[in-house]
């Protein structure tokens, strides 16, 4: 499934869009997969995941066809 990346997450992954395995069926599992494959993301402490343009808690299920986005915090001013 496709994952839309923003900010520093895009830089860490090296792409604006990456694929994640269908075994990540909820947000918690997706985060775990992200942290495992892109360890620098751990430094962020907080990482917003949005499913279909809605903030998604860890328990939120991910279904085929959902639009999933990773939005890291940004501090620049």
């Amino acid at each position, binding site marked *: 499934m496709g994952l839309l990346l923003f*900010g520093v997450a895009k830089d860490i992954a090296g792409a604006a869009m990456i694929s994640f395995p269908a075994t990540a069926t909820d947000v918690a599992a997706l985060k775990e997969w992200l942290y495992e494959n892109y360890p620098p993301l751990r430094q962020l*402490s907080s990482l917003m995941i949005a499913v279909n343009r809605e*903030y998604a808690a860890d328990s939120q299920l991910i279904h085929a066809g959902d639009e999933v986005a990773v939005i890291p*915090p940004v501090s*620049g*001013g």
Partner: protein
Amino acid sequence: MQRYDRQTRLEGFGLEKQRLLQQASVLVIGAGGLGVPVLQYLTAMGIGKIGIVEHDTVSVTNLQRQVLYTTADQNKPKIQLAADRLGQLNPEVQLVQYDTWLTTDNALEIIQPYDVVVDCSDNFGTRYLVNDACVIAGKPLVYGAIYKYEGQLSVFNYQGGATYRCIFPEPPEAGEMLNCSEIGVLGVLPGIIGCYQANEVVKVITGIGTPLKNQLMTIDTLHNTHLIFNITPVAANRQMQRLAGNYQQTVCEVNNLQSLSVQQLHSWLQQGNALQLLDVREDDEWEICHIPQAIHIPMGQVLGRVAALQPEAPVAVLCHHGMRSRAVGQRLVELGFKQVYNVEGGIHAWACSIDDQMQTY
């Protein structure tokens, strides 16, 4: 009111909304990349009272995006410059200067008298502090932040809506990766995001349109992609009673070693700028040649004699070719010196480009 004619004749705005602007007070945290457009447009539109929190001085690297300042303003305090220029733009606005960084000690007191707070800061520590102080003081917070070519916007803590901690509960670890001045930013990006912040402030004050309550808008300026994400408010994030003990604030622009050409150094010395020129070469090198205004402390002795330097005033570090001075400069930055410059090319470059009478070695 002739000044506001284009707003008072605007359908859906009129005299009524203009009066709301003039009765309102807005606190802007930071007069940098985001703060400059926020301040310019809020002042122009006629907000009654605008408070500015800023403690930085103008650096040449600010000028590709902070369009309120000029080349001649380098090393001068931003807050005084901003207040002067904004006053010239619109003398009807009351401008209040807070010449300080926002801290756990002063945040609540500074925020309290204002109707709306605008976060134009440049580091996570201050952003979490602003959020928490706004929650405690019950103030709507217009949030904007930038990264490379992207921006984020929201209106937090507004009419029972979500807060910053509802999307990002805990601050990141202090890490090099997220340091804005190392990453860089396209000059116009804070212009876009800051203007949107000013627009949201007007919406919050006057009630026109739909402010970004419970919404995070992301903007990708490379591809003109605008997305709005809905946020669910978390009630616990609004129960905060007191600030945290420490927000690990880092001041983005200031705490970095900056580069200085010998031409720029020459011009600063000629202009009599308050600059500490620190020559860190060894005694025998100093004997061969030196710049008269320099303070001489060999590299190995700098840390032991650091008290001889003023940490608030700018320091330019000089050696033979610019390598040792870079190491010393980095160390001074870590010690909390606010403006540290490495003289690129060292005294050799000075001898080649500025003073052809100087002996080289």
